C-alpha cells in the first residue's frame, strides 16, 4: 500500500512540470483567443458609421440605448450605429476629446454644458428643418439645452423633482392628499401630522417628509436662477432663498419631521420611502419604476409654492436629457438625422410609454396614453406641470467646479461640521462670492467682462 502511494506521489511529482507548463500554455492559448476574438473589427458593411456614446447607469438604460441603435439601423440600412457604452460618460468623453477619437452623437444628461465648446451649434439646422420645432418641446427644456443663445442639443426628456407621497399613511392620519396649489406651510403642517413615534421611545419611527441634499439647489432657485441670464452676476443670496433655507433647516432640526442627513444616508432615502417609514419624499421620475413595485398606494404632487412677503414663489430642479453632436464629426448630416430621430416623436413616445423617460415633447407628455396609462402614479401630470417652473441645475460650463465649491458650504449648512451648523444667512453669504469668483474667472478666460 505504502509502495503504491509512494509510486503515485512520484508520478505526480514527475508530472508537475508537465502539468504546470501545460496549464501555462493552455492559458496563453485561451487568453490569446479571447483577445483575438474581441479584437476582430466589426464589418458593418454600411456606408456611414456613427459612434454613439451612451451611459450604462441601469440595465434599463442600456436596453434603451441598444433599442435606439438597433431600431435606427433597421430603418436606415446605410448607417451603422456603433453604440459606445460607458458607466462614466463625462470622463469617457473628456478622454475621447483629448485623444481626438470623439464620437458623433452623445447623450450626456445634466452637466452637458461642460462640453459646450465641443458641441455643434444646431440653430441653423433647426431653422432649416421643418420637422424640428421649438414648440414641440416644453419651453424650459428647450432653453435648458442652450448656452448663451446657441442651441447645443436636442432635448428628449426633462426629469423634474416632485413630491411622492404614501396615500396609505395620509389615510391613516386622516389627512387630505396634497393639492396642486399647496404651499410650504401646508407641507410643514402635513409633515408634522405624519411624523410618528409609535413605541414612545423618543425616536421617530415614521417621518413626515424627506428632502435630500440634492434638493437644496432647487430651493436656491425659487427666486430664479442663481445668476443673471448671461451668467455674469451671481444672485444666490436673496431674501427668498434665506427664508426658504431657514424653513428647510427648521424642518430637520426644530420640527424633527425630516430625518437628519446622516439618518437618510445610513438608511437610504428611497428604501425609507419604500418601507413606509417616510410619508412624503422628493425625487425625480427615476424613482417611478422602483416605486411601482411597492404595495402601498402612492401618488405624486408638484413641489409646493413658497409664500413670502405676500408673493408666491415656485421652482423645482430640472435635469435635462438630450442628444448632442460633436463639432468634429465626420458625418454631420447623418449625426443630425440620428439625433433628431432620437429626440423625435416616435422614439420619445416609445421611451415614455416604456418608462424610460419623462417625455420632453409636449404632444407625448400631454397625450391620454401617457397621462392615463392605468399605471401609477395617477397624477402623472405633476411632472409635466412642473416643467413650467422647473429650473436647470448649475447650467454653466464650469458647473463641476460650482458643484465642488458649493458642496462644503452646503454640507456645513445641512449637516454641520465640528458640532456647528451654518445658518441659512451664513451659507448664502458664503456662496455668493464663491459663485461670483467662478463667473468672473470664466468670463475673463473667455474674454468677456461683467
Amino acid at each position, binding site marked *: 500500500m505504502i509502495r503504491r502511494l509512494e509510486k503515485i506521489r512520484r508520478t505526480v511529482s514527475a508530472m508537475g512540470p508537465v502539468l504546470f507548463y501545460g496549464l501555462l500554455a493552455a492559458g496563453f492559448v*485561451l487568453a490569446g483567443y479571447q483577445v483575438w476574438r474581441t479584437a476582430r473589427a466589426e464589418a458593418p458593411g454600411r456606408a456611414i458609421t456613427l459612434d454613439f456614446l451612451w451611459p450604462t447607469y441601469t440595465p434599463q438604460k442600456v436596453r434603451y440605448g441598444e433599442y435606439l441603435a438597433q431600431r435606427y439601423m433597421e430603418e436606415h440600412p446605410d448607417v451603422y450605429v456603433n453604440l459606445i457604452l460607458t458607466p*462614466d460618460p463625462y470622463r469617457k468623453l473628456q478622454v475621447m476629446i483629448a485623444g481626438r477619437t470623439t464620437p458623433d452623437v452623445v447623450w450626456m444628461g445634466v452637466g452637458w454644458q461642460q462640453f459646450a465648446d465641443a458641441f455643434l451649434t444646431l440653430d441653423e439646422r433647426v431653422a432649416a428643418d421643418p420637422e424640428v420645432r421649438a414648440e414641440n418641446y416644453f419651453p424650459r427644456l428647450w432653453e435648458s439645452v442652450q448656452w448663451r443663445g446657441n442651441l447645443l442639443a436636442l432635448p428628449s426628456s426633462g426629469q423634474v423633482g416632485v413630491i411622492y407621497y404614501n396615500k396609505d399613511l395620509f389615510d*391613516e392620519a386622516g389627512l387630505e392628499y396634497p393639492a396642486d396649489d399647496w404651499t410650504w406651510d401646508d407641507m410643514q403642517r402635513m409633515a408634522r401630522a405624519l411624523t410618528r413615534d409609535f413605541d414612545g421611545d423618543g425616536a421617530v*419611527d415614521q417621518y413626515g417628509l424627506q428632502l435630500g441634499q440634492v434638493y437644496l439647489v432647487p430651493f436656491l432657485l425659487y427666486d430664479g436662477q442663481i445668476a443673471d441670464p448671461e451668467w455674469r452676476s451671481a444672485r444666490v443670496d436673496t431674501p427668498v432663498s434665506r427664508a426658504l433655507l431657514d424653513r428647510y433647516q427648521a424642518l430637520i432640526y426644530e420640527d424633527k419631521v425630516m430625518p437628519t442627513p446622516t439618518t437618510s444616508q445610513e438608511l437610504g432615502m428611497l428604501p425609507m420611502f419604500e418601507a413606509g417609514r417616510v410619508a412624503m419624499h422628493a425625487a425625480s421620475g*427615476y424613482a417611478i419604476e422602483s416605486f411601482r413595485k411597492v*404595495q402601498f398606494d402612492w401618488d405624486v404632487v408638484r413641489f409646493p409654492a413658497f409664500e413670502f412677503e405676500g408673493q408666491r414663489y415656485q421652482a423645482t430642479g430640472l435635469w435635462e436629457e438630450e442628444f448632442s453632436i460633436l463639432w468634429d464629426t465626420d458625418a454631420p448630416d447623418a449625426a443630425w438625422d440620428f439625433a433628431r430621430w432620437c429626440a423625435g416623436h416616435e422614439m420619445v413616445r416609445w421611451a415614455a410609454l416604456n418608462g424610460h423617460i419623462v417625455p420632453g415633447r409636449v404632444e407625448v407628455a400631454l397625450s391620454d396614453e401617457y397621462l392615463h396609462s392605468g399605471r401609477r402614479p395617477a397624477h402623472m401630470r405633476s411632472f409635466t406641470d412642473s416643467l413650467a417652473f422647473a429650473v436647470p441645475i448649475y447650467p454653466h460650463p464650469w458647473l463641476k467646479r460650482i458643484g465642488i465649491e458649493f458642496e462644503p458650504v452646503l454640507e456645513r449648512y445641512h449637516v454641520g461640521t465640528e458640532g456647528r451648523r451654518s445658518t441659512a444667512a451664513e451659507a448664502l453669504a458664503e456662496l455668493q462670492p464663491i459663485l461670483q469668483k467662478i463667473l468672473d474667472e470664466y468670463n475673463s478666460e473667455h474674454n468677456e467682462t461683467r
Partner: protein
Amino acid sequence: MTGHVTKPGRALRRLLAPLAAHAILIAATAVMLLPLAWMVSTSLKQSGIGLSRGIEWLPWRDAWTNGKETVDVMVLGARVAPGDGGEAVEVGIKSLASRRRFTTVYVPEGAFEAEIEAWRIRPLTGEDETAEARWAPFASVRRRVAPEWGNYREALEKMRFWVCLANTLAITFLGTAGTILSCSLVAYGFARFRFPGNNVLFLVLLSSMMLPSVVTMIPVYLLFRELHWIDTLLPLFAPAWFSVNAFAVFLFRQYYMTLPFDLDDAAQIDGCSALGTYWRVLLPLSRPVMATVGIFCFTHYWLDFMGPLIYLNTSEKFTLALGLYTFKGAYTTQWHYLMAATLAVSLPCIVLFFAGQRFFVRGVVMSGLKA
C-alpha cells in the same frame, strides 16, 4: 534545582498571554470581516430592503405556516377578533408572489413577540379583504430567515458576468505573465550587472512610480489610438510585456540582491550564458517574489476600472469592474445585486490570496518590503 521550579505566576502568564493574543486577534479579525459579512447579508436580501431597516444581519421575511406548508406573506394589518376561548389577535396577510417583495408596513425587530398595540400595523379595511388577502391567527405568522439566492443568478445575468469574466481572465493572465517575465528580466540586469549609471537608471525607473497615472493618461491614450488599439483588450495588458511596472522591477531586484553571486559564477563556469543564468538559475529561485508580484498584478488587473473605462467601448469587451457599475446608477443603486455581483467578483481574489499566502509573505519579507 530552582531552574526546574515553575512559579505559579509565570505559568499563568504563559497560559494567558497566548489566550489574550488570540482573543485580540480574533476580535480584530471579526472587525475586519464585518464589511464582508454585511456584503453577504445584503446580497441575500430582498430588493429595497438592503438598507431600509438599518443594519440587519439576516435576510428576514414574514411567513405564514399551518404546520404543513410555509408561505411568504405580506402583513397588511391586524385586528382583535372574537374566538372560542375569548378574544384573539389576527393578522391580515397576503401571499407574496416571488416578484412582489415589499411589505406594506414596517415591523420593528422583535415585533412578533410584542403586544399588538406596539405594532405599527394599520387596521384592515374592507378593500383589503380581497381574494388574495386573508385573516390568520397571530401565532401562524412568524418572521423567518429567507435568503434570496436568486439575487446571485439575476445579478450575474444582468451584468453579463460570463462575458466580462472571459475578458477579465484574458487580461489578467496575459498582464500578469507579461509583468513577471519582463520585470524579472529587467531586474536581473539591475541586480547582477555593474555598469556606469546603473543606480541612476534604477532611480529614474523608480521615479516613474511618483507620476500619477492621470498625468500620462492622455499621452498613452493617443499612443494606443495611433496603434488602432482603442476598443480592444490590447492596451490593457500589452504594456505589461515592456516592463512598465517599476514596483515589480524593484521587488525582483531586491530579491535578486539577496542571492549569492557564486550561483552566477558557477553557472558561467558550467557554460551558461547571461540569459541562461537568468532563465535556469535565478528565475527558478525566485518563486516567492514571483508569487508576490503575481498576486499584486492579479488584483490590479482583476479590479482595474480606469483602463477598461477609457479604452473599451463595446459591452462585449467589458471587464468585471465595468460590469459591476451596471448596478450603480447616477441616481439609484441596486444594493442587493451590487453586493451579490461584488462577492462573485471578489471571490477569486480572496481564494488566490489564501492559496498563495505562504509565497506572498515570504516574497514580501525576502524582498525587504514592509507590508
